[in-house]
């Protein structure tokens, strides 16, 4: 039997943008894979191409060199098979739709029947703790609640991979803690692999099986840390010496990588 393919596989990937000031090399020779069900975070200095990495996997960008595979297929066919969902930094909810209608959007686009659509959306809304807000419009929600709705929207297609681009960077510290904890619960409940881009070292340590540290532009993989904190991880684990230890290791790696 074949070993099942990785959720995401980057193979010597390079990306060069053509801009008005000339060619900008965003990523160089990046090889990285995320196993099925694995939680991998990417950290790196601003502008090092972390988001570019996600956009490659999401079929928003194509690499200039190298290969990207999502569950052994091209990102485009994985996208059409609805194998993954993307969660953006900005929740990108449609302001004229209610929470329920926003969450239903991917299924609506996929042509799923009304009833299944409704069931799955309600389920996803419950999973992110937004039950009771189905009829609210985005403007009536707090930043944290909007991001929950965006996560629910990502979950409705029951993806095997979540691509998350700094999803909690705009919420306050306490809300972020709570959302982190809930994300872990969702992750273990759904069994999806997660590729998570963040600025926060503590967040990466708390969430991840593995942390990938990128260098400054052009982004290259500097090192990988396998975080062996026991699971399930309660929020309190953030304040244990082991977590501090991992955070300072990651910080050191990031400082070296960004030099």
């Amino acid at each position: 039997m074949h070993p099942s393919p990785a959720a995401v596989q980057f193979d010597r990937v390079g990306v060069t943008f053509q801009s008005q000031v000339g060619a900008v090399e965003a990523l160089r020779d990046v090889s990285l894979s995320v196993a099925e069900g694995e939680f991998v975070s990417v950290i790196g200095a601003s502008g090092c191409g972390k988001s570019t990495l996600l956009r490659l996997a999401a079929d928003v960008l194509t690499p200039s060199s190298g290969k990207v595979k999502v569950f052994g297929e091209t990102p485009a066919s994985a996208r059409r098979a609805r194998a993954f969902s993307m969660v953006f930094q900005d929740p990108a909810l449609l302001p004229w739709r209610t929470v329920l209608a926003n969450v239903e959007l991917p299924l609506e686009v996929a042509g799923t029947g009304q009833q299944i659509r409704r069931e799955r959306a309600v389920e996803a809304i419950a999973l992110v703790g937004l039950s009771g807000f189905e009829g609210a419009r985005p403007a009536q929600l707090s930043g944290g609640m909007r991001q929950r709705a965006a996560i629910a929207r990502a979950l409705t297609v029951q993806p095997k991979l979540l691509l998350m681009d700094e999803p909690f960077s705009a919420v306050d510290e306490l809300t972020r803690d709570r959302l982190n904890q809930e994300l872990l619960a969702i992750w273990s409940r759904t069994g999806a692999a997660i590729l998570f881009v963040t600025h926060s070292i503590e967040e990466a340590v708390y969430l991840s099986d593995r942390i990938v540290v990128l260098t400054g532009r052009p982004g290259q993989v500097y090192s990988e840390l396998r975080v062996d904190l026991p699971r399930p991880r309660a929020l309190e684990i953030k304040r244990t010496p082991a977590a501090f230890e991992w955070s300072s290791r990651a910080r050191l790696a990031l400082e070296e990588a960004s030099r």
Partner: protein
Amino acid sequence: MSVPGAGVWLRWFGGFAGLAAFFVAWEAAVAILQVPLYVLPPPSAIWRQVLRDWPLLLRHLQPTAIEAFGGFALGNGVAILLAAAFVHWPPVQRALFPLAIGLRTIPLVAITPLLLVWLGYGYAPKIVIAALISFFPTLVNMTRGFAAMDQQSLELMHTISASTWQTFVKVRWPASLPYLFSALKIAATSCVLGAVVAEWIGSDRGLGYLVVAATFEFAIARLWATIAVTSLLALLAFLVVAAAERFFVPWRDDAGI
């Protein structure tokens, strides 16, 4: 939930108070300065004339309303379709936008006689003039409106494998509605004026014709009554569009646009 607060009523009240003050000042000025009726009648005299001439005014209001509405539908419809084409096929925009601007620069008063030659004396030339006058603001607004979709929404629709059509219907179109209604509010009043100008140049019915006829007969009070009814028609069209906006763009207040 968005409940129309005291602010809305205050705004309405403010609008009425402003109008009322204007008419009172007009009435007073005419009385105090003893302005002759043929120079400027007071609002009360105009209103009495409107009541007296009501059947006549109503008879001529009808064709004008039809032409204005027809031009409104035609001009805005074409502008919306063209703007949608512009957004999806940039070469079309590059090819046709200069032409649209060219159309805008043509003095309508000058081409109305030509349109009469081409299209006859019926509704058609008036509808075309009303359409031409509504067309450009809507084209410009909707070209912006359809492009107003933010990058992240576009990427979202792409990652959920939405078709171009789905993206248009579910995101571009609703996102453009605030722009559409800004344009429709302009068009609502200008299409009435377009229809009146077209009638003024060549017609035997409509408020524009009545303006010409009243002028020739030196029926100054009737002229003013016709002007008043024309203004009311344009105002009504504007209010209908504004009400439609409240109904179709209820999130506008949320977004604080």
